[in-house]
């Protein structure tokens, strides 16, 4: 494999169109070479994490929900936090794929494949948690709308049923979107690979020939899926946020949740894109393909959503104080100075203080800073959901019922397992499918 110099993207664009297209293929497919040992080590780690989580879940099913640390009054804890966290991560994938597509943004093409993959895997991960947190998980199918033996359906007024519909729809649409976008790239893989993999790529590319008769349908479905996916992404996290907003306890019952959660989802999802793609870029030597400019544009999006999230924090707190509602006021004061003040202030720091440093151009263009910042943002966003779920439950109306919650070993193991599950899928994806949309980058040839 000939080593290419550290030319900038400009030099890539200096190539004539066909050479550009060929070069793009070569550079991007660097990621699909035979894996080095570090890949296997990474995979081993993520699979171990996954096994830890699976074993913990099996024990929980066998022994009972009491293995988790949740109690009266805190009936939801780490699992629901994880659920909202993963759904949030999923959102930025669709944002990048669908919404930025509709806005015809140019930097989108470098991230959209990984982001879409991230979406699919994150939704798969998120979809586990409504099962994990069920007291009688073996009856999970009762949550789906079908007539039971007594002709009883589900309660469509319940936000959890909305979740079932929203997350299932989101998973289906994301998979469709991901797959459709992949078809031309699968055709490219079919051309390059040999043996069994070639046969598989051939099957999944459905016999794609690249003829305009196919492209015209492809363009339209892509456009309409993007148009469908945009309101979907807004609605899914709104629906997930309504799991809380439909509750009546102070800290949950507020109308700001839908936009607040959607902005937060995009925020945390963007951060996860950074967490995953910055090291990938280094490992696969994609410096030419994804440039610092691309990251800077993405960082501006991150900053924008951070500003919305900060605004939401201020509004929430301010309205609670202004409302003179005894319970609302007390809940928010408790958040700031009560049992959980550590998680509260850490969240504020990670989400509403650190990201504002992105106003400084130098920091925006520093990829290591972006990478470290993305970890803080992910921690901060996990803590935000934790704070909303746990602190509101721990301190609501009746003082006798105030309580405390600490995640148990089982919950920590399953959370770790969810990261293992997600990362395992992602690592497998990186080596089997092109992690940058080759066909879309080729569009920039002229």
């Amino acid at each position: 494999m000939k080593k290419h110099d550290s030319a900038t993207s400009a030099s890539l664009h200096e190539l004539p169109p066909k050479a550009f297209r060929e070069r793009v293929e070569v550079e991007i497919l660097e990621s699909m070479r035979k894996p080095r040992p570090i890949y296997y080590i990474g995979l081993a780690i993520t699979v171990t994490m996954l096994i830890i989580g699976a074993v913990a879940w099996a024990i929980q099913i066998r022994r009972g929900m009491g293995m988790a640390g949740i109690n009266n009054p805190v009936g939801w804890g780490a699992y629901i936090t994880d659920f909202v966290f993963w759904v949030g991560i999923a959102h930025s994938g669709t944002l990048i794929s669908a919404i930025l597509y509709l806005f015809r943004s140019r930097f989108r093409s470098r991230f959209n494949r990984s982001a879409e993959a991230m979406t699919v895997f994150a939704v798969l991960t998120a979809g586990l948690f409504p099962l994990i947190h069920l007291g009688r998980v073996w009856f999970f199918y009762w949550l789906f709308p079908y007539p039971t033996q007594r002709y009883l359906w589900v309660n469509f007024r319940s936000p959890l049923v909305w979740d079932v519909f929203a997350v299932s729809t989101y998973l289906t649409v994301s998979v469709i979107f991901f797959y459709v976008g992949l078809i031309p790239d699968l055709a490219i893989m079919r051309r390059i690979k040999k043996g069994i993999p070639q046969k598989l790529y051939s099957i999944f590319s459905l016999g794609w020939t690249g003829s305009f008769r196919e492209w015209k349908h492809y363009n339209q479905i892509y456009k309409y899926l993007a148009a469908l996916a945009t309101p979907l992404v807004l609605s899914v996290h709104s629906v997930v946020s309504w799991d809380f907003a439909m509750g009546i306890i102070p800290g949950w019952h507020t109308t700001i949740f839908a936009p607040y959660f959607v902005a937060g989802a995009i925020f945390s999802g963007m951060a996860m894109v950074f967490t995953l793609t910055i090291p990938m870029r280094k490992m696969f030597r994609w410096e030419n393909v994804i440039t610092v400019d691309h990251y800077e544009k993405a960082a501006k999006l991150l900053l924008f959503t951070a500003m919305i999230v900060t605004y939401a924090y201020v509004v929430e707190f301010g309205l609670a104080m202004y409302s003179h509602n005894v319970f609302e006021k007390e809940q928010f004061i408790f958040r700031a100075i009560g049992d959980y003040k550590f998680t509260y202030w850490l969240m504020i720091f990670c989400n509403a203080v650190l990201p504002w440093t992105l106003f400084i151009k130098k920091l925006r263009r520093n990829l290591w800073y972006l990478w470290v910042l993305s970890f803080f943002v992910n921690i901060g966003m996990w803590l935000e959901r934790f704070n909303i779920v746990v602190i509101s439950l721990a301190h609501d109306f009746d003082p006798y019922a105030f309580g405390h919650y600490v995640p148990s070993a089982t919950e920590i193991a399953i959370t770790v397992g969810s990261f293992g599950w997600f990362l395992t899928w992602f690592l497998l994806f990186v080596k089997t499918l092109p992690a940058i949309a080759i066909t879309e980058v080729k569009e920039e040839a002229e």
Partner: protein
Amino acid sequence: MDDIPQYDVEAADVLITFGADILETFVSPVNFIKQITHAKEKGHFRWYHLEPHASLTGFKANKRFTIKTGSEPYVLSFLIHHLTANNLVRNRLPQNILDQIPDVSANQAAEKSGLSVKALNKLATALSGAKRPMVISGGVSLGNANGLLTASLTALLQWTLGLIGESIRFDASEGFDGVGSENDMAELRNQLNNGVVGVVFLARTNPVGQLTDGELFGKALGKADLVVAISDLPNETTAVADIVLPLSHALESWGDAQPRKNILNVIQPTLEPLYDTRSEGDILLTLIALMRGQQPNLTYQEWLFARWKELLGSDAAVDEFLKKGYALLPAQRETLRLNAAAAASLLKKASLNAPAGGSVLFAVPSLRMYDGRSKQLPLTPELPDPLTTITYGSWISVSDEWAQELGVKDKDEVSFSINNQQFKFPVKVQPGLNGHVATVHMDQIPANVLSRDAATGEVLAVINNVKLEKTGAQVKIPILAGSMEEGEKREIFPETYEDLEKELSHHNEVRATLYPEHHHPEYRWGMVIDLEKCVGCSACVAACYIENNVPMVGEEEHLKGREMSWIRIEPFYGENPDKEMHFTVMLCQQCENAPCESVCPVFATMHNDEGLNVMVYNRCVGTRYCHNNCPYKVRRFNWFPPQWPETMERMLNPDVYVRNGGVMEKCTFCYHRIRAARDVAKDEKRKIRDGEVVPACAQTCPAEAITFGNLLDEQARVTQLAHSDRSFRALESMGVEPGVYYLRKEEIKDEEA
């Protein structure tokens, strides 16, 4: 007459108690609670309670005074002399007695006791102005060095007020004349040590574990020829016995009981003995027959029936007795006379010990386990202590002042010693305790640590000059209440008149709503809980556990905050605990617009047309959203599948579903009882009458604080109470329209009291 009389508190209009914890463990708390309720119903009832510590009884009295321990004789002396001097007494005491009672002035009494002169005068005025006063002493007021003197002076005060023979009588006395004191047991111990005793039968008693010199008694038992223990549970006494004969459970045996001299109760078995056990009667009859060389052929049951026929007169009377469960025996009304000479000489001999200063520790019998004898029952530690809401474990209740001095807060460990035995307990700050006062429950310390009064045999519950030392450790004890402070202007339960006025102004307004009206064709079940009558005894909680097969989850789960009680007593202390302490009874409010219902994804909880929020156990998948959405947090989740140890499953109520792990549960207003009543009414082709359905909690409450019925029925008691001017609902502003109404606690302004 060597017995405890019946006190007619019901008819009283002023009650003064010195230390007697009549709502907790004094003689017969269920009886006293009921009497207090009836007294309150009559109106114009005022109750003043004087105690050196803080007890449930004190908090429920209309006015609670803190006195220095041992100073009761001063207050009593003052009252006797003051009333006598002003000719406010019914019977003037003979002069030789009056001479023996120290002439304590108001100022002197105030100084010794710590009460204000105003308070003393108020007590005197209350007594003198009362048509039917009542004075009772007991508890920690008698369990100190001045105990005998306090009891004597109380009796004299009662006599001089004309209570003896009128409202304090012995025709229906408690039946303690057959009960020995610790001094009697010490006498037995001497006999044992002298080798005079041959065979000892110890039936249903545990002297080795419960006497203050139990250890010595146990050693003395070794000197007897044969020690036979007849018991249903193993204890310290069965451990030293030579033979242990297992006793049948009360549910497996025939028997009778005399709670009062004039009442006979029947004990009937519900099943054949499960194991190889006998009742005491059968054991003794068999032994008697064998001793006589005869074949045992008379069962206890036959013996009892013969005895009852004798007592009650005829077979028909015995039938009636078995059906009703009790029979009234003819009472003997005795004329009681004051033995002036004996009283005077008693007073002369008594020495008035100065009330102790310094720090005091009280060992009080606990409401839940008395002195520890019911600790073995799984339910008793599962229920929280009403004042502290602690379930499992031991603790020492300390005043706020003292805790701050020591630099400790709840759950910090302190060490202290009683009679040279060291203890390390976590602290619980108890509002209402003043000064350097701490209390410990008797069930948490071994009985032999306490000493007894040699003259009377009374266990001395007061330990003077106790030192508490912070050890620096923290102990995990389950304190179930998240917080017992109401905070200012918290709108859950309006406490002041002003708050209630605000509340009631909304009462008759029809709340504007987007929702359709609820349609109740026949019944709308509702409940009214009178917070004035409720004394926080937690009997309703215990009843609910048993009736509804509620699992008992144990200490570890309690530490995680996972208690399972469907109904609970919530204590709340205000800024001034003497004035602002009340219990709230919290259970599922069966809201019309229950927030828990719409969030269940599978319809496992929904509203039926009788106004109940129904819980469908077999449909629940366990998402717990309903639990999160309940503003009162009354729903309970089965975190683990409940375990019922061998034979305990026979205790389960067959009318009620037994829930498995992963399923939500909550109070159902004893829906199985509503169903049963409906079936009966359907057979008789009528509607359910008021009073036919009584949930377990209402049935059990000794204070008759819980009323249940059909709110659609204008004539029903529950409807009338719900529309009274004392009624309010919890968290009314939420708009959930609860079906449980509360009657506000009486507020007695200072001037009135």
